[in-house]
């Protein structure tokens, strides 16, 4: 297996052309019309401390990756490309992943359009997402891939209209793009049907909505910055991004969902405060009585971050998931003991310390839920040896009192990882 990793790295190394040695040469370099290719090669290893009884394995991350990026533009058009060639030894498969292949243009003075495969983000949370219902890859995140990979690309059309009154950001994703969800392939998880932690083989495969136009995703953001305060309203029509429902055959699927929300963010108390709310309408179970479909939910986020001392930053967040019609939920539930609490409280903290002129960054991110009685710790160290070489090592530690809670279900998947990257 390791041999295949090496072969991959050898295969991609011709791309690792020498870095431009341009300090003394012409600055005109950047303006030439040739495509400039940049990217990186990365090797990553991660492992549990003990074998997970469900998956029967220790490995969580064992892959070699080569990234290529380029862009081309003239006065009216920009084309972007970012793609990865990946050998993932955990699932023993080669993969080509296009993260960005877009055409961007501005058909009007105040209108920007971006079409194609792209990564999309909005909202104010730090690793918590209320109104950002674009696809995410929590599996890669848990395994210790670069944070960039938490955001999965989607095939979308994005329209930005800028006016004096308000700015409008509209994204249409014609074919539903779900999150990467827990399948049992890399990490075990809790199944309410089995009433236990499982790692199905073949991996879990949820039913996705059929790809007709009415099953597309529509996401809207109205935003404006006024006196340094950023205000935004959000709307979304699509589906829960995780397969939280079960159909009549008890196969997981993505129930219909509409969300409305709002956020603000501003400087305050020598730091930043943010607040965000969202209401998820579970369109197929508005009465909250269908045990196979999640209920409506109200979500709230409050955050504050600031520099505590020079080079040391602290960020804290409080997050609430308030399940609506909770009595109906329990009354009709097939397994009330596994249903979410009416109020799921979650606190997070991010501590970041920068040393050696930012070459060494230590950080700790903590998720802690007093209502679920579970937590997730993410300490990591990032070292930038040079403009070419960077390394990161970290831990994902999951624990909880119960098997069915969000982080508690992952407690056999705690892992340590290390990644080394060469940029070119």
């Amino acid at each position, binding site marked *: 297996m390791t041999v295949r990793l090496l072969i991959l790295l050898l295969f991609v190394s011709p791309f690792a052309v020498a*870095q431009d040695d341009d*300090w003394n040469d012409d*600055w005109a370099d*950047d*303006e030439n019309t040739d495509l400039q290719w*940049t*990217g*990186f090669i990365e090797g990553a290893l991660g492992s549990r401390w003990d074998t997970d009884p469900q998956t029967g394995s220790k490995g969580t991350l064992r892959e070699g990756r080569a990234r290529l*990026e380029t862009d081309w*533009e003239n*006065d009216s058009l*920009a084309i972007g490309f970012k793609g990865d060639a990946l050998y993932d030894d955990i699932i023993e498969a080669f993969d080509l992943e296009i993260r960005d292949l877009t055409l*961007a243009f*501005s058909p009007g003075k105040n209108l*920007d359009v971006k079409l194609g495969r*792209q*990564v*999309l*983000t*909005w909202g104010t949370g730090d690793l918590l997402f209320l109104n950002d219902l674009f696809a995410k890859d929590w599996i890669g995140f848990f395994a210790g891939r*670069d*944070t*960039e990979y*938490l*955001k999965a690309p989607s095939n979308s059309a994005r329209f*930005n209209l*800028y006016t004096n009154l308000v*700015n409008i950001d509209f994204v249409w994703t014609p074919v539903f793009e779900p999150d990467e969800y827990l399948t049992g392939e890399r990490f075990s998880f809790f199944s309410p049907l089995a009433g236990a932690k499982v790692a199905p083989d073949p991996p879990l495969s949820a039913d996705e909505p059929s790809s007709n136009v009415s099953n597309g995703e529509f996401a809207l953001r109205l*935003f404006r*910055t006024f006196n*340094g305060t*950023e205000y935004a309203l959000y709307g979304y029509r699509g589906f829960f991004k995780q397969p939280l429902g079960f159909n009549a055959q008890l196969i997981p699927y993505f129930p219909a969902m509409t969300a409305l929300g709002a956020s603000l*963010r501003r*400087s305050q108390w*020598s*730091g*930043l405060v*943010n607040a965000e709310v969202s209401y998820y309408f579970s369109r197929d179970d508005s009465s909250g009585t269908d045990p196979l479909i999640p209920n409506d939910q109200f979500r709230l986020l409050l955050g504050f*971050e*600031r*520099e505590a001392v*020079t*080079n040391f*930053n602290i960020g804290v967040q409080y997050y609430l998931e308030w399940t609506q019609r909770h009595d109906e939920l329990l009354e009709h539930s097939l397994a009330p003991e596994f249903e979410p609490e009416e109020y799921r409280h979650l606190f997070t903290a991010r501590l970041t310390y*920068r040393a050696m*002129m*930012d*070459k060494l960054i230590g950080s700790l991110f903590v998720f802690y839920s007093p209502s679920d009685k579970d937590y997730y710790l993410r300490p990591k160290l990032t070292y*930038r040896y*040079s*403009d*070419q070489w*960077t390394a990161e090592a970290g831990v994902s530690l999951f624990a909880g009192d119960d098997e069915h809670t969000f982080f508690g279900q992952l407690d056999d998947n705690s892992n340590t990882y290390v990644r080394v990257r060469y*940029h*070119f």
Partner: protein
Amino acid sequence: MKPLLIALGLAVSGLAHGQALTDADEIVVQANLAAYYAGEDGRSEARMMIIDAQGREQRRQFTVLRRSLEAGGDQQFLVSFSRPSDVRGTVYLVNKKVGRDDDRWLYLPGLDLVKRISAGDERTSFVGAHYFYEDVSGRGPDEDAHELVETTDQYYVLKHVPKNPAAVEFVSYVTWIDRKTFLPIRIEYTNAGGKVYRRVEVLETKEIDGHPTVVSSRTSDLSSGGHTDMQFRYIAYDLGMPTEVFTERSLRNPPRQWLKRPAAD
């Protein structure tokens, strides 16, 4: 906090060169205008070579757009990074507010994330260089007490003592300000031990569009031995940039019209 950008540098006109100023505060005000407020707006390409105490080199390359709302007052900055490859496409937007916390945003293209950055210590490394954010954006003239130590044929030599010593790592600093251009040519910082431990020096200036402008400078860490060289090229002033250039739109969709290199240097 005050943000970015050194040395799109500047011009001072109308003062009788022959006659030496004697008011330290007035000299500092003129130097602030000269160093940070040249033209109503401006653009420049910049690159840095960061050399640490072990001799290892790192580079940064970026384009800076700057617009002043008022001479000596609030400013807007947009910094678009092109090198090294891991920061290519990163864009930094600052609304510098004199006497209040600045508003700052960073765009991370890999995540399509518009990250707001909290006010922080201005005297920390700017993108890994020996320059501080404050060197790049300017230190508020009101933050120190100024004293004119000496007037030579070429320089006003001033000593500055911080009004809030707890907020900075120096006890005092001395600047050599060019009497003709009012550009600070050398700055030396002294620590509690009485030692000069940090130096910012101008290596080359040029007159561009009538504005004396720093085109090459160096900041040295005299205790560790490392230093950063910074060069500016393709500088242009008074391009008529509208305020809309400095908004969230430019983070996701950098304003090519203004970032693009002018026809002639």
